[in-house]
């Protein structure tokens, strides 16, 4: 197990390198720069000398390959560089954003799983029924709404009209604040999970071993409990993992809308201000999250499915 984790972690390195390279290349040709973003408000004209010094300070005067090399060298020492904007180490900028982001992603996923999986299950147990059709329509509808639109709608209904929940913001200990953004974020994975679960259950219900179990005289509830659930879980786990893994990156719009201080809104702000080290850092974090979650999914597989060995 430990070996597996080490091996997988090592395998992440080329992926990460590729990601760093891609982002680096993209942002080396992007128009606009951190310097020009300083002038963006149209009022504080900074003098040329200060700007020149800034460039020098951040090594922006060096040629591209040198910058890339410096960056990779730093990365090898777990150093993500200095944020142009805040002039602090990038990690200090990212670190406080990490927990809110993870919290939002996990809550959204908990919502998605808690609603989506049972829905999919119930729909599949009566395929073709009105409930099934309705649920699946609902699921597809969930995938069809622009997130920010849904977010605004939730805000208007639950915060403004009903006054039940706060409309925005982040409170470290507060559950009430996370509900709306989590739902807005969770609806699409929820729909996806409902669909995957339904398909998985139908698949498993058609499997030969379920016929065997029927021939053994098991009652339907027992059959579902003892033979279907785990096998469905195996099928659903991949979707679950992929969703959790990509949720941090998908949260951008929702975080922006709800002023949620997560990685996604940091990324957008950093792109807007061309704070390249932070952009790099956040993308690395997002990708790492994805890779780590997927590794955990594989570990979970091994725990559930005896056919899979992680070594």
């Amino acid at each position: 197990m430990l070996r597996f984790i080490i091996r997988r972690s090592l395998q992440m390195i080329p992926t990460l390198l590729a990601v760093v390279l891609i982002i680096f290349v993209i942002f080396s040709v992007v128009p606009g720069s951190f310097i020009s973003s300083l002038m963006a408000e149209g009022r504080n004209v900074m003098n040329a000398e200060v700007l020149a010094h800034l460039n020098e300070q951040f090594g922006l005067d060096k040629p591209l390959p040198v910058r890339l090399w410096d960056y990779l060298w730093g990365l090898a020492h777990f150093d993500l560089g200095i944020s142009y904007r805040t002039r602090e180490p990038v990690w200090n900028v990212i670190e406080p954003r990490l927990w809110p982001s993870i919290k939002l992603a996990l809550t959204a996923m908990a919502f998605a799983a808690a609603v989506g999986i049972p829905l999919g299950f119930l729909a599949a147990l009566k395929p073709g029924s009105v409930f099934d059709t309705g649920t699946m329509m609902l699921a597809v509808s969930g995938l069809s709404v622009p997130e920010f639109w849904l977010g605004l709608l939730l805000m208007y209904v639950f915060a403004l009209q009903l006054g039940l929940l706060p409309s925005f913001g982040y409170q470290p200990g507060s559950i009430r604040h996370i509900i709306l953004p989590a739902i807005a974020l969770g609806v699409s994975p929820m729909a996806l999970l409902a669909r995957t679960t339904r398909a998985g259950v139908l698949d498993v219900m058609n499997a030969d071993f379920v016929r065997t179990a029927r021939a053994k005289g098991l009652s339907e509830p027992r059959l579902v409990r003892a033979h279907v659930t785990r096998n469905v879980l195996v099928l659903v786990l991949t979707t679950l993992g992929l969703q959790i893994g990509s949720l941090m990156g998908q949260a951008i719009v929702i975080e922006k809308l709800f002023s949620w201080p997560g990685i996604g809104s940091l990324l957008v702000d950093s792109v807007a201000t061309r704070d390249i080290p932070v952009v790099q850092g956040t993308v690395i974090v997002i990708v790492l999250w994805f890779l780590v979650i997927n590794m955990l999914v594989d570990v979970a597989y091994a725990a559930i499915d005896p056919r899979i060995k992680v070594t």
Partner: protein
Amino acid sequence: QDATPKDGGKFVFVAPYGNAITSLDITATPHTQDEIVGKAINRSLYKWNPESGKPELDLAESVTVSDDGKTYTYKLKDATFHNGDKLDADDVIWSYNRLADPKKALPGAEQMLQIAGVAEYQAGKADHISGLKKIDDRTVEITVINLANPGWNLMSNYAPIYSKDYPEDQLASKPNGLGPFKLANYVPGSKVELVKFDNFFEKGKPHLDKLDIMLMGEAPARDVAFRNGEIDANVLGPVQYEAYTQDAALKDHILEVAEVYTRNIGFNPKIEAFKDKRVRQAINYAINKDLIVEKLLKNKAYPAVSWLPISSPAFDKNAKPYAYDPEKAKELLKEAGFETGLKFSVTATSNESWGLPIVEAIIPMLAKVGVTVTTDPVENSVLSDKILSDNFESFIWSNSSGPDPLKYLTCFYSKTPQNACNYVKFNNADFDKLIDQAGNETDPAKQNDILRQANNLLEEEAPVWFFNYNKAVMAYQPWVHGLKPNAMELAIQDYEDIWIDDSAPASRK
């Protein structure tokens, strides 16, 4: 707002631009968003008085000016930093040295340029700034290089006084200022919680016990939060402005101010047609800006006459803006030989008041006089990049145009480079002459007369399409008092003067 202030309670304010706070060290950032927080924590030598519209002394109790008008001697107040240090002359000298230090590349360096010796210091020819002198612990002497009032520069929120003994690397996370509030908790990307600083040098202030500044860029979300009572003040966009002024429950608690920004479309003379004054004028005639201001900006702006805003002392009350007159525009275009075929693009951000929506509105209007306009949508950082590198045909932007009229008219002085603020490379000998004249005039009234002429000349020359002067609007909850109509930037408030009354809900007490 005339009752006697009450002490205590909490005020939840909102920083409305973009989402994040860059840094709690205000000297490290040039963004308004950060000023909103910095204003609570820090103090500068001068401060802007929104009521009088002038800089006034803040950290100094008195100043004496030498006869030549270039040496200022300040007697500092008895003020204490959040960490307990006392303010002394060395702090001022250290802070200004730090700001001017080219290696640190701080935005506030701009504000130091007026001080004698800064140029040498920045060029590396001197190891300290000769224009700064400590007389005694509480007295500091500053020499400047011109006759302008140094208050304009030294009131800048980006040029605060820091304690020289405080570790610099802590400034971003644990700021230590002279301001009325000190940091209690900072949730990056979300909010800043501040608490009353008991040793604030203005006695009896601040009134509030707590000040929360929430960060929220999305106007519709802010609207919901305000109506839901989650925030106490809301900087309004045009749509909310219209809605709030029509809402009986909200309309009595709205603060409006004419800010010192001029929104405009700048014409790049790189385009042959724009070299012709008639073309520029024609565009000004062809666009019904009153309608745009009414319909798109919901009257949250004042149609612009010329460059200087209405609040400017050099504004000509009798001047008339360009009328909406498409026929005249057509005529002018015909004269200039651009009856048809004039085509240009407008580089614009997505800003609702001076961005793409405005361009979208002028497209059909200009189409009617035979001018084809296309959009070149960009992000903020790219906009300034394109403008400063002369990579545009025209742009729509919002530029500072006050409060100091001379400073902002100088932007059209032919020797001002494009990457300073003469974005349209305006070059007019008559205008230059007037600016030279005004620069040498010491009598403010006469100076204003000259500048008024210059401003009118600018209107005639129309180097830009004069669109509007911003009207900033803030709505506040009924229990809030002490907000000021700050024409510089409405969102920057003197927090020490804000107080809340008994009608505030429990969560604010």
